[in-house]
């Protein structure tokens, strides 16, 4: 949580500084900007404005290293969580810098498309990160322990629950697309309820025969029911995150392509930042 707080503060500070630095310029319309003293610095093709774009682009390309880290899972390149935090940080700061590079003007189709793609990348990224935090951790060891306890006390109740849960595994969509995930969601909700009911109803059956013993295990029955249901929720959110990641990647890919086109055209026409030929 700390990194998120730090990130938000960092972003706010950077944005506030950049806005303070150029607000007088950014607040003007196009015609008036030409006469402003900062026009030769903050315009997209001028040293600082162009620099925002260059640094922002480098940060966003750095951002892509997270994909490399995911491919090289076995290499000792640091924890995936740290890389994900770096991915989020560079993505957000790079995005902000690119917005300042545009000087808050969207005057061409490619600029508009790029900005929309950037916004969607950031949006899908933040939401994906949120989905990631929602994914439950399934404590299978605890479930197994409780079922063993049921067996020892409830005269085979744990074994019956296990058999019945195994007969109703969580559905896994054939194709991990967002659409199929959304279409499977009602099934998952139903399965989660059914698995919860399996545990509770099995316990209720055994309560009649072994009333005293089962009642003694009442709290564990409820916990087992939640773990059984969370198994379905974990599968569902995992599929949802996977499909959402595809969407995030698509917009990221589109953004990279547009940025590369923008860079190539600008470089070709001679807009090369500090390397321009005067």
């Amino acid at each position, binding site marked *: 949580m700390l990194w998120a707080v730090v990130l938000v503060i960092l972003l706010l500070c950077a944005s506030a500084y950049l806005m303070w630095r150029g607000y007088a310029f950014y607040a003007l319309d*196009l*015609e008036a900007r*030409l*006469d402003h003293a900062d026009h030769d610095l903050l315009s*997209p093709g001028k040293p600082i404005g162009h620099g925002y774009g260059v640094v922002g682009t480098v940060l966003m390309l750095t951002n892509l290293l997270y994909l490399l880290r995911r491919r090289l899972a076995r290499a000792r390149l640091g924890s995936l969580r740290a890389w994900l935090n770096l991915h989020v940080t560079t993505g957000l700061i790079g995005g902000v810098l690119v917005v300042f590079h545009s000087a808050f*003007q969207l*005057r*061409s*189709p*490619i*600029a*508009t*498309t790029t900005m*929309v*793609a950037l916004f969607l990348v950031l949006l899908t990224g933040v939401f994906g990160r949120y989905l990631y935090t929602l994914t439950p951790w399934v404590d299978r060891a605890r479930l197994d322990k409780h079922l063993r306890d049921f067996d020892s006390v409830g005269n085979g109740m744990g074994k019956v629950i296990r058999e019945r849960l195994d007969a109703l595994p969580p559905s896994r969509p054939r*194709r991990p*697309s967002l659409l199929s995930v959304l279409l499977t969601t009602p099934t998952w909700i139903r399965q989660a309820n059914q698995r919860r009911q399996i545990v509770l109803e099995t316990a209720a059956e055994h309560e009649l025969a072994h009333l005293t013993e089962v009642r003694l295990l009442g709290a564990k029955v409820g916990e087992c029911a939640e773990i059984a249901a969370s198994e379905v929720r974990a599968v569902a959110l995992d599929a949802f995150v996977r*499909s959402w990641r*595809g*969407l995030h*990647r*698509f917009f990221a*890919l*589109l953004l990279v392509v547009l940025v590369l*086109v923008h860079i190539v*055209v600008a470089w*070709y*026409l*001679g*807009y*090369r930042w500090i390397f*321009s*030929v005067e």
Partner: protein
Amino acid sequence: MSARYAIVLMAALWALLVPSVALGQLLSPGPLAAGHADLEGDDKCGRCHSTGKGVVSSLCTNCHVNIGAAVASGAGLHGRSFRGQSCAKCHSDHRGRGAALVRFDPKSFDHGQVWKLGGDHAQAKCGACHKSRSWLGLGTACTSCHKDPHTGRFGACLNCHDESDWAKVKIEKFDHSLARFQLKGAHSQVACENCHGTPPRWRGLDSGGCASCHHDPHGGRFSKTCTNCHVETSFKTIQMKAGAHPGLSLAGGHVRLACGRCHDKGIYARPTKGSRCSGCHQPVHEAPFGNRCDSCHASIKWLGLPPKVGLAAHEKTPFPLHGRHVQTACQKCHDPAKPAQKRFRELAFDRCKSCHSDPHAGEFQKRSGGECKSCHTDEGFKPALFGPDLHASTPFPLVGHHVATPCGKCHQNHTPGKRRTAWNVAERACVKCHQSPHGDQFAAEVQKHGCGGCHSPIGWDTPNIAHERWPLTGAHASAPCARCHRPTEADRKSGKGASYQNTPRDCESCHADVHRGQFRLTKPVKSCNACHSTHRFVLSQFDHGKLAGYPLDGAHRRLSCGQCHRLEKLGDGGRTTRWRLGYRKCRDCHADPHGGGQ
């Protein structure tokens, strides 16, 4: 994410974002200003941008040629104040269609960068001079804005005028040689106010004549153009111009005469002899041209008058000019090589050959005494009047085809080495012109009557022949001669033409046997006229019983010929109708329904 899903998403996103923008505008950072609207499109970036160099000013001046020329020459605002600077620094584009490319504040502009505004110009409004949309293009010359009332004759305005006070003229610097009235002679010494008055009036002075300023001491007796007699250096110096003499031109020989030769009572008094030519000169013309010599010799030129004068006067002579004589040059008749007396007064003109040579070499001496008029007019030697009517007065009147025969067919050049046509043809026999196609077949007849015994000029192919030995009847009467009198092979070899004597008289010699020998080669042999006549080959009446020996009775009468006489194919491939059937019994044609018998 599947590839299909990605494609669908990308297409959807693209369609949402760029629905109204042409793909050609994809890379543009923003719309161009209205003035550059025709440069929109990703394929036209290179019109302004250079590879690796951004916006290059030389590309701007490719279109804005005038600006480029001004910058190169250091003229105008751009050439003086912005030479070497990038155009894009001031004229930034891609800021929208409505954005102004020229961002210019007239109030703060230092006009001295281009042209310092002096005098009243400093107070003038910009639009008084800069009337077009562009601020550029005005020159620094006064006439760029002001109309020059002097139409450019006096050079730069500031030579005489002051920028602050236009009416204040620096007259001492004015070059009067630029004015319409140039100061020459004594005029160059006259003070300005003598002519321009006080206060001076510079415009509207009448400089057309001397009388505008000077008094006429002659009281209007002479021409208003004083310079005809006087010069500008001194009024007393008289130099009379040719043609300026009142009443009589002094051109020609008169100019060489001293004034006193005519003005015997002083130069302002009329001569005692008057002003008529006849007062001094004796008439020389024989024709009644009258005493108004000046009507022809107004320019005091006796000889060499223009043809127009000569032509007008010729009507009064015994030889008025008509036809081609009107266009004939005077010297063709009035030969300048001849003495004047012989050239005009004693010039012979009563006969054509006085001037013209006889192209017929006296051939027509007997006709009209050799005068040309009987055959030619003065409208031209050709065409001659001699036609068939006049030919009738010759020993060979033209009749029939001879009327339409071109003259040259008979009248040819019989004199070797000369182009002259011989009009008198001594030999008039037909054979002199025509070749006989009959050889010597009619030698005796020709000897006796000539060709005219049978033929006439009306038409060679309509001879006057009785044809009594073999009378022409029926179709023969209208058949051309050559249909029967065709030249044989022997005739062709001898070259005498068709034989008109001993021509075979039987039908077969001219007509082909369409019956293929049915009546010639089988008995009974029948001649053609047994059935046919000379009027019509097709039979109109045929007595079948009498001529064929088989009367047609009963149902046979109603049959058409072809039902018995069929068209048959012969051994040589030809076809003919079989008229001689060779059978006459019923069963030869009909089947026997009774199974036998006759």
